């Protein structure tokens, strides 16, 4: 078990190190989030009440759009220098690679989400501090589901020619429950209601996370074959 965890950790470490040195994805994703904010503002107009009413949906729209770009790139880096063959030749259970990649994606999404929250707070004059602990729980559950799906589909899309097209076509319908649960729970939290009000949604998100994780762990080796 410890070698399994170590394998997952090494994948994560490799990706974090690569990202830290190349700064390929994160910089662009954070900049993309800033652009999204402008798009939202132009689409909704200057009325602040409208922005506040649509806020939970807007936030998750931002996360999912950023996820479409970020998660879809998960395995692209492995296509260079025949790294993919290296992954296939890795001894032991291949699902460790899936979990390592998943952890990396959760990290990336966490940074993007934090950036989007700060940008929303600054540009729309909102204050999230009171709801922050509850919001963190909702974001964690939602992000885990989004990333679990995105990592699996990202591995599939990486080997397909029309990758940019295929990834959203697979991800968007599958992610509907995560989106519904996250938006509803985020709404509850942002309205200042206790977290218990959103309990059914949190349970649904947890169940979705669990199912996606189990399917991902069980089927990843068949995707990795290339």
């Amino acid at each position, binding site marked *: 078990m410890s070698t399994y965890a170590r394998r997952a950790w090494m994948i994560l470490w490799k990706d974090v190190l690569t990202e830290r040195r190349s700064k390929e994805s994160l910089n662009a994703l954070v900049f993309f989030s800033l652009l999204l904010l402008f798009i939202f503002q132009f689409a909704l107009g200057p009325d602040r009440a409208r922005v506040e009413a649509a806020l939970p949906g807007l936030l998750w729209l931002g996360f999912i759009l950023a996820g479409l770009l970020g998660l879809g790139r998960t395995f692209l880096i492995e296509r260079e220098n025949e790294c993919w063959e290296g992954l296939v030749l890795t001894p032991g259970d291949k699902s460790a690679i899936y979990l390592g990649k998943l952890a990396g994606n959760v990290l990336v999404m966490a940074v993007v989400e934090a950036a989007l929250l700060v940008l929303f707070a600054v540009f729309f004059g909102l204050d999230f501090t009171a709801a922050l602990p509850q919001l963190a729980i909702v974001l964690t559950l939602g992000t885990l589901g989004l990333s679990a799906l995105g990592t699996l*589909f990202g591995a599939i899309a990486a080997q*397909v020619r*029309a990758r940019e097209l295929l990834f959203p076509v*697979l991800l968007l*319908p599958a992610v509907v429950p995560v989106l*519904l649960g996250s938006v509803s729970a985020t709404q509850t939290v942002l309205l200042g209601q206790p977290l218990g009000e959103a309990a059914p949604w949190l349970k649904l998100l947890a169940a979705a996370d669990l*199912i996606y994780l189990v*399917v991902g762990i069980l089927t990843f080796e068949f*995707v990795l074959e290339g």
Partner: protein
Amino acid sequence: MAARALGWLAIVALVGGLGAALGYAPREAVQGNVQRIMYLHVPAVLTAYLAFGLVVVGSVGYLLTRRPGWDRMALAAAEPGVLFTGVTIVSGSIWGKPTWGTWWTWDARLTSTAVLFLVYVGYLLLRGMVEEPDRRARYAAVVGILGAANIPIVHFSVKWWRALHQPSSILGPEPSPVAAPIMVALLVNWVAFTLLFAYFFAKRIEIARLEEPHAG
């Protein structure tokens, strides 16, 4: 040959079903003739679920054995499955126009059926984008399994999403007990649709076998 026999059987059953739906079954008291769309709508959705069940069986079978037969089975079930889901949505929409006064409403069952439709359209698109048979079969199997595992989650999320926004359903009071002739007409049509699906399924497997480079 077996497929051809199934086809004729399906045609006979469909004619019988049409007769039962339009002639034998009585005019429904509240909704009038519009209700007869049910004889198309309900068998279509039941057949679609049967088809997606077979997709899962074929997908799991392929991943475990790597025999192309399982993949042909998944493909042959998925295509009519999407078709019947489409029939379900369109017939529901045609029923909804005179009954609810709108072609489309974000009703719980309507929405989750639409999501199901989109998931399996994505499945078929994926199949169209991968050339190499083994890779296509593997990717499709993974997406097929995930799509099926997602069905209960989609179902509950959409149901709660509607329930939390709009407490009383548009469908109103509990449906009254169904009269026997209506039930019979429904059953006949259900059998007819299942036969039609079986014909599509058998025929599609035949075609898939011919499509393969080394047909055996």
